[in-house]
């Protein structure tokens, strides 16, 4: 299944592995931060609602 990358196999594989890892880190960071802020806002709004 893996294509024959010849003598540049290390460079090409490393480029793909590191770039995909960086993209996954970015997507994960944006998603986790979004979730954290959304939950924190919901808590504060609920507290503000109770106080009237």
């Amino acid at each position: 299944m893996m294509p024959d990358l010849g003598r540049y196999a290390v460079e090409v594989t490393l480029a793909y592995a590191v770039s995909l890892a960086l993209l996954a880190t970015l997507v994960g960071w944006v998603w986790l931060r979004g979730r954290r802020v959304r939950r924190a806002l919901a808590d504060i709004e609920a507290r503000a609602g109770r106080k009237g």
Partner: protein
Amino acid sequence: MTPTPRPSLWEYANPVKFMRLSDWLLPLTAWLAAAAIAVGLVWGFFLTPDDFRQGSTVKIIFLHVPSALMAINAWAMMLVASLVWLIRRHHVSALAARAAGPVGAMMTLIALFTGAIWGQPMWGTWWAWDPRLTSFLILFLFYLGYIALWSAIEDPDTAADLTAVLCIVGSVFAVLSRYAAIFWNQGLHQGASLSVAPGTRMDWAYKAPLYVSMTGFGLLFLALVLAGTRTEIRARRMKALINRERMQG
């Protein structure tokens, strides 16, 4: 009879309308981005032939060119959003520029990394103080400075003003990153990989998956900026509620 008002782009400067729009646009762009990136990279990695001169390293182009393109386009988008903030004081545009900062920085990092790893076997060096490489490195430093400046200033409007000015100054390097190879016509880096000018050499075997990958990176940028802007809007509201609680004692 009253005429129906024409819809305007400025309506989305309203956070509520922006949230409503991004509610359905975000999942759509995220899924399309995932699909386009998967197709572009699988096609590029598994199904393209080796180049007669560069061997299998040509496959790095499907990461390098889209990330470099988005690194520059992200700064261009930040510039437009910053100008909208400075001229019309729409908060959503300032928050969208802030959300684009980390995405652009990561795209620049990927472009620098894939460029270095591609350059080593082709040029015999990981790095050279070539005009395009150097201007890209400076662009990356501008991204870091931009992100740091947003975090360093407590008052959001002052932060938006100062980062907008930094963005305008940094645009010089974004332009240089794009056109450095043409301005100086020297250094190791080749000219534009894709061009509408006659005589461009790239075969469709590479061009087709490259276009798909570029579309995917563009959609990913859009999805991440939409998600980041939604988070910034919520964070701004959270801050306002906390301040109100404090004032009420």
